[in-house]
Every structure is written in structure tokens, then in C-alpha cells.
């Protein structure tokens, strides 16, 4: 087998990935692949990206030793990679700046995006505002309800938000609607996808831009601890912050990967979003990957307290890492995530996104089982200001 970092091969991660898309999109996807291949090693492009990442997005983000949390769990040392401190409050800006620069190079004037929790929509709106592109964001009306603040933020940033009323009215339907728009307006429009999902080369492009997370933390960790971490933990919806964290360590098997999916109200309840944990292989949104589907291949509705994890598919590279057992995938429930949310807020004075709280919940348990000289890095993919209303009503419900 090839070195893991060499994948994808011909657009595939093992058998996963590929390009299952309507013929109308084929030319645009080919154009995207060619443009990206040309630009990605271009010195000027790299300089520009670096400039925006440091001067605009606030990188590098700190690697913080969570001493109080570590003390509390009495186990392995827990570090937090603080993507919540990136501009916009999440790791999403790493990808949107990169892709918006690419869109501009390709001569596209209009950018469309999908969003679940609204973080990718906000990050798209920001990147487009600063680079002078027109942004339109598709968002399920269910998500618009639970993330009102982010809808307003997008509008403030000059983006147009299209409410999506079809299907389950969440992230998957927002992607469907974005794809339909792209098919229609392919000549002037760039589809800026927000996670490591979709047809090749999107999972590759998004991974490349998000790998800044893992690259930084590798150096930061090395200078603090003079070694590599024993375990990396990140939440997985589509899986972009997780792949960004894992990728620079893929060829170092001594570093264990844990991807944490949303178990919602529990896997047995059927109300969850654990595509890797409880799904099966399928073809969805242009890729072969693990999906939540019924026995005749209809995609199923998902549930999670966090809109950002509420997706019935997952990036094809995660399906690959699961199949070859390079990464472990586990889950955390709504309840466990909410508890972790409150714990980090109280112990460290950091309010984490509900998405990242799933990773935290798992990491605290993992740390307990590990020796004190071991180390864990949790990617804190975003900040939780957007989630305080959801948490407030969750706490009300559980106290009733």
C-alpha cells in the first residue's frame, strides 16, 4: 500500500471518493481540478494565502494546555488546538480564504456555499467580502431557526441567505440546493464547499487548506513537549477539522486518531448523525462513502444537538481511514456534548462550539484511561457563542 499521505489516487481513497455527478457538472469539476493543480504550488498564490491567514484570519492559532481540565480528569495531559480563536470563530475560514482566492484566480464572480450551523456560511461571507466576491449561502430553514445569530451575521457581511425548504431542511438539503444552483449558473459561479465532502477534487482541496491545523500543531507540540502527541481527537460531521488535524500525521502510526461523531439521542434511538458508526457504504453528494440510509438506499434524516454535525454522509477519506483501521471513530450523545460544553466553560473559561464539545466529551474519557505522561490534543474547531441559546433550552429541558 502507498504512504497514506499520497492519497487520493485518481480521485479515490481506496475505493472511496470519486465523482458521481451529473454530466452538466463534469466540465466545471475538471476545470476546478486543473486550476487547483496549477495554482497550489504557485509561489504567489501561496504567499497570498499565507498573508490572509496570518493578517486576516489571525493564524497561527494557539495550542493551549488545558491544565484545569487535565487536573480534573486525572489522566493524560489535554491540549486544545484553538481554532475557536480564528477569525469568525471557527476553523472554517482556513478553507474559505483558500477557495475564495482560487475562485478569484479562475475568474468567477459569484460564490455559492451551503451551511449547517452557519459557521461555513459566515466564513464564506467574510472571505468574499474581503476579496470582493459576491456570496450567496444556502441554509436549511430548520438550521436558520436554531442558528439565528449566524443568519444575521451572514447578512451583515453582505451575503445573501437562501432558505432551503426541501427535504429535511438541514445541511444535506442545503448542499442539494447549492448543487442545483451550480448546475444552473455554472459559467460564472464557484461552489465553495465547506467540508471534505462532495466529488473529487473537493475533499482534496478542503483537506489541503485545513491541514494548516495539523501542521501548526505539529510544530507547536514539538516545541512544548519535544515529541508527537499520543492521540488526536476531533469531531466529525463532514470531517474537515478532523482531516485537517490528522493529515500531517497520517504517515506516523504512533499517533492515534479519534474522530467523534454525533450520537444524538443515542444510536439505538435512530436519532443521530453517526454515518461511520452506524451507516453503510453508499453514493451520496458525488462521493462513495459511509452514509446513513435505509435498506433500499434512501438517505435518512439525522439528528444532532449541533447543526454542524447534522449530516448523513462523511468525507471519503474518513471512510478510508476507518476501513484500513488507521483512525478510530466513536460517538458522543447530545447529553455528553452538552456536559462537556459546560465543563470546559467552567474549568477553562472557554466556551466551545457544540460540535467541538463532542470531541471534548470523548477526550475527557480517553484521558482518564491513559497514563499521566501521555498526551492528547483536542481540536477545538469553533467557539460556542452561537450555541448558548441551544444550551440554555437544553438545560431547561433536562431540569424539568
Amino acid at each position, binding site marked *: 500500500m502507498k504512504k497514506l499521505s499520497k492519497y487520493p489516487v485518481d480521485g479515490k481513497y481506496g475505493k472511496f471518493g470519486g465523482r458521481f455527478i451529473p*454530466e452538466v457538472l463534469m466540465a466545471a469539476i475538471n476545470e476546478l481540478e486543473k486550476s487547483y493543480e496549477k495554482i497550489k504550488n504557485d509561489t504567489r498564490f501561496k504567499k497570498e494565502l499565507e498573508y490572509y491567514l496570518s493578517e486576516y484570519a489571525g493564524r497561527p492559532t494557539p495550542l493551549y494546555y488545558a491544565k484545569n481540565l487535565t487536573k480534573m480528569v486525572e489522566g493524560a495531559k489535554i491540549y486544545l488546538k484553538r481554532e475557536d480563536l480564528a477569525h469568525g470563530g471557527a476553523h472554517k475560514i482556513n478553507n474559505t480564504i483558500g477557495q475564495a482566492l482560487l475562485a478569484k484566480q479562475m475568474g468567477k464572480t459569484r460564490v455559492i456555499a451551503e451551511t449547517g450551523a452557519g459557521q461555513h456560511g459566515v466564513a464564506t461571507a467574510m472571505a468574499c467580502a474581503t476579496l470582493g466576491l459576491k456570496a450567496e449561502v444556502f441554509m436549511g430553514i430548520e438550521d436558520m431557526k436554531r442558528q439565528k445569530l449566524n443568519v444575521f451575521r451572514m447578512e451583515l457581511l453582505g451575503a445573501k441567505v437562501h432558505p432551503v425548504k426541501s427535504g429535511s431542511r438541514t445541511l444535506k438539503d442545503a448542499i442539494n440546493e447549492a448543487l442545483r444552483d451550480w448546475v444552473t449558473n455554472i459559467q460564472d459561479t464557484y461552489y465553495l464547499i465547506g467540508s471534505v465532502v462532495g466529488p473529487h477534487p473537493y475533499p482534496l482541496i478542503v483537506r489541503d487548506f485545513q491541514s494548516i491545523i495539523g501542521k501548526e500543531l505539529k510544530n507547536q507540540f514539538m516545541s512544548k513537549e519535544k515529541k508527537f502527541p499520543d492521540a488526536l481527537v476531533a469531531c466529525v460531521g463532514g470531517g474537515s477539522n478532523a482531516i485537517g488535524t490528522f493529515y500531517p500525521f497520517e504517515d506516523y502510526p504512533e499517533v492515534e486518531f479519534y474522530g467523534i461523531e454525533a450520537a444524538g439521542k443515542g444510536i439505538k434511538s435512530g436519532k443521530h448523525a453517526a454515518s461511520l458508526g452506524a451507516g453503510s457504504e453508499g453514493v451520496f453528494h458525488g462521493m462513495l462513502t459511509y452514509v446513513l440510509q435505509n435498506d433500499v438506499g434512501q438517505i435518512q434524516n439525522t439528528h444532532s444537538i449541533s447543526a454542524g454535525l447534522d449530516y448523513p454522509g462523511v468525507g471519503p477519506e474518513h471512510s478510508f481511514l476507518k476501513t484500513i483501521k488507521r483512525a478510530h471513530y466513536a460517538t458522543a450523545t447530545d447529553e455528553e456534548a452538552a456536559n462537556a460544553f459546560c465543563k470546559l466553560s467552567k474549568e477553562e473559561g472557554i466556551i466551545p462550539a457544540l460540535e467541538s464539545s463532542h470531541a471534548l466529551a470523548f477526550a475527557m474519557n480517553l484521558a482518564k484511561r491513559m497514563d499521566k505522561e501521555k498526551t492528547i490534543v483536542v481540536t477545538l474547531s469553533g467557539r460556542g457563542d452561537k450555541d448558548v441559546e441551544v444550551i440554555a433550552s437544553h438545560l431547561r429541558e433536562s431540569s424539568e
Partner: protein
Amino acid sequence: MSEIDIIFKKLKTKNQGTLIGYVTAGDPEPKITPIIADTLINGGVDILELGIPFSDPIADGPIIQAASSRALKAGTTPKTVLKIAKEIRKKHDTPIVILTYYNPIFKMGVKNFFSLLNTYKINGVIVPDLPIEEAYDYHKIAQEYKIDTIFLAAPSTSEERLDKIIKHSSGFLYLVSHFGVTGTRKKIQDSTIKLIKKILPKTSNKIPLAVGFGISNPEHAKLIIQSGAQGAIVGSAFVKIIDENHERTDIMLKRIHKFAHDLKDAMIIKY
């Protein structure tokens, strides 16, 4: 020669374009689809396209999306669709083509899928999200069962790709008339006519060319045939009639019959 080849040939000698009519199977409920199909065929549809409803139809506009939801709500599965086809076969020899997104095929297994299609005497398959690059096994197995693989070409398809697509296609080549999803439209764009004329030299003597997406009335169908295409595919316009009248089946059937008849009438070339 397949049944689809035969029908195109036969109609060509009669100076007629081939009318391909689409409905989502199971919309509004499975037991009505055979009656709708009967009406379509009696009205003038030459090839019947039956859609397997899918939860996430990314190439479809609001009309067919809504039809898919209704059909799924009524409990339609791929197996239901095949049973519907069997019901239609009792009365008609009309070629039947299945339209489905790829995941239901993938889920049941490509081999199993074509074996079932063979059992149920289905003549061809259209999969809007399966480009030729991902269709190696699919194409091979379809050939073994002598089931036509109808691939799509788009306004953006390069000449080089078009050659490959034609090579993989049998039955007919499905040309998408414009950038966009399925749905009814007011007008056939000039660019569509130009596109047909550009592609015809590539397909002639190889495979019939049929045009779909946005063909909404007899005038449109006439224009498509006059431009040289051998077939016109009409979907959303039929599905819209079903949607508007799904509580009054008698009126629905009457309107479907008249619409199919008018479409077909417009596709007869008169000298």
C-alpha cells in the same frame, strides 16, 4: 437490435419523432402509476420512462422533487417500481426505461439490479449522477443482460468526452438542453438548437439523439424534432399535471391523454 433501437427506426421511416414520456413511479401512489402509464401510451408516448423516487434528487427541479417526496411517502421502493412495470407490460409492449439515481442501484448491487431489470423486461436505464468514468461495472453488466445504457450529454460536454459518452451509450443519447435542473420552461433557447446541430454529426449513424430538460409544450417538441433530434423527452410537464390533479384522477388522466396526444401530433413531420 434492442427494442428501443427498433422503435426509433420504425418512427424514422414514418417521419415521426420519438416521444419519451417520464413519470415518477408511485406518484401520487403506486396503484395509480399503471393507469397513468396506460394513458400516456394510448395518448402517444413511444418510450416510457419510469423514475425510481430518490430522497435527494440533485438534478431535479421542484416539480420532480415534489413527485419524489409524494412517491416515497406512499411507500414506493425500487421493487414497487419494477412491479408497476410488470403491470404495464400486461397491456403494452412499449419500451420501458428506468430512471434512477445511483445509490439505490449501488445499495442493491449492480449485478442484482440488472438481473432484476432483465426479469422484469426493462429495456434501458438512465442514471443522472453516474458519469462514464464511474460506470465500468455498470456498463459491462448491462451489456451482458442486453439492457440499454442511456448516458447524458450536456452543453458543457467537450468533444472528446462526447465521443466516449456515445461509445458507452445504447438505445439513445440523452442530451440535456441547457444548464440547469429538470423543470418546465417558457421557451426553447437558441443555444439548445445550436447544440443539437453541433452534436448531430457525431451521433448520426451511431445512435438516436433525444433531447430533454425544459420541453414543456407541443411547440417545443416540434422545434426539437425540426432541428434534427430524433426524440423529445418530456417529464416535468407530465408530472405537473399529476401534481395539479392528484385528488381528481379522472381529470388528471384526461389532461395527460390530451397533452401526450398533442405532443406526439406536433412531432410528426409534415411535408
